[in-house]
């Protein structure tokens, strides 16, 4: 594990993956601001430094479906952190139904949560990093950004959109010492997927599609996400790193 003491990080999304990445960054010494509309989830992650080498975690409750709220939240977080080195976007909502049964409001809600927040938060974070000449941005994408899962149209479109947003940011900010990459999980056991996996036979059929023989866990994404923020990934930019147990092979 690299030493992240002195690293100032924002993690957007206090769910399973965002929470696991937050704890790993703080355990490695980073101070972390967690942005989420769910004040309880944010409060659960918050803590003050309990031992030498650990970072602080504090919450910044924010409605990430609002451009103004995203800008304000990044500003407040960066001010309290005293700067910004790392930004992780781990925000995702899904609503499973066929395209022909997807109403406008579902499409608009998923686009706002998954894609618009990626743009608004990434732009605000990137502005600070470009000005400072250094930064590491990691988006949590999904295998759905590549594969053609049925009943996933808004989710897949937004994750594919995140991949391209990430690449253009990577291109624009490369000369300024800022790398931008994505980690793409396969089906991961989080609050987002719990109800779906509880349907009869669903878990077994999903597991059968993963060469690793099991579904993903938030801990699977921690190593890849931290790698992309580490010194050794300084020449990696514009990439989608699939951490999916081989899901995209079959």
């Amino acid at each position, binding site marked *: 594990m690299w030493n992240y003491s002195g690293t100032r990080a924002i993690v957007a999304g206090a769910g399973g993956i965002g929470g696991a990445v937050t704890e790993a960054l703080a355990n490695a010494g980073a101070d972390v601001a967690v942005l989420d509309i769910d004040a309880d989830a944010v409060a659960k992650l918050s803590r003050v430094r309990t031992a030498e080498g650990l970072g602080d975690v504090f919450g910044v409750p924010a409605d990430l479906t609002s451009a103004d709220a995203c800008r304000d939240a990044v500003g407040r977080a960066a001010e309290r952190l005293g700067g910004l080195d790392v930004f992780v976007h781990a925000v995702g909502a899904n609503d499973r139904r066929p395209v022909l049964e997807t109403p406008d409001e579902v499409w608009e809600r998923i686009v706002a949560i998954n894609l618009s927040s990626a743009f608004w938060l990434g732009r605000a974070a990137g502005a600070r990093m470009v000005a400072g000449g250094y930064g590491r941005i990691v988006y949590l994408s999904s295998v759905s950004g590549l594969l053609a899962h049925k009943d996933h149209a808004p989710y897949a479109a937004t994750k594919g959109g995140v991949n391209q947003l990430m690449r253009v940011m990577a291109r624009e900010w490369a000369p300024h010492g800022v790398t931008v990459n994505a980690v793409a999980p396969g089906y991961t056991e989080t609050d987002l997927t719990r109800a779906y996996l509880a349907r009869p036979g669903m878990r077994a059929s999903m597991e059968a599609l993963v060469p690793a023989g099991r579904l993903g866990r938030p801990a699977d994404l921690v190593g890849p996400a931290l790698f992309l923020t580490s010194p050794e990934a300084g*020449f990696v930019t514009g990439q989608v790193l699939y951490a999916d147990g081989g899901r995209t092979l079959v």
Partner: protein
Amino acid sequence: MTFPQRFTGSTVLVTGAGTGFGAEIAVRAAQEGADVAVHYRSSRAGAEATAERVKALGRKAFVVQADISEHDQIKRLADEVWNHFGRLDVAVNNVGDVAREQMSWRDITEESIDHVLAVDIKGTLLCTHEFGARMLEQEGGGAIVNIGSTVVARGSARAPQYAAAKYGIIGLTKSYAQAFAPAVRVNVFAPGFIETEATLGRTDWKNGRGDKLRELTPMGRIPGPAELAGAALFLATEDAHHITGGFLIADGGYNMIGA
């Protein structure tokens, strides 16, 4: 810089570790706690120098020769490594022929095509096959990293056989990743241009190609081999335990066509 210790107690084989990128991967593995098997074909002095660097770090080193364009020699290589260490946790298949002497597609020869494909595709495939088969038999499995190249993004007008070979590595990696899952993971690490001594010595590099490639790289520079060694090894660490059949480019954004 204090490196994380991700290979404490592990054994790592790096093919083509007598010079360049392979040598730096071998040394970095040792810096992170591994004992290292240093393979070479013709760079015996280089391999021994790499082994000395490994030993200077307090790790064990084992030098082994083989021509990986021949299946029998790969089997012997695998047997020697397993006999020596008892097990192998990580194999980095770094050997590759880039047809360095060829300056234009017009200069291609059938002999060069055969040799590049024999080393890069057949050799990497059979190394993956032989090392992976043995890893499946041992407790805890293992991880294999095949060294590809960003050349797959744009192709190579200079040496089409090289680009074809590196595409082949993606196909064989995906195949063995499926075949070996979940006990043995197989991934591709794809660097862009690296300023190794061999690269810096190339006539075209000295005549402006280096500058041109820096211009085409969004990050605006070309790294040395030591800078990328840790990223290549990441794919073999526990941090990457759920990554298999994957493909990681580290080229400062050069692969982003349109950049």
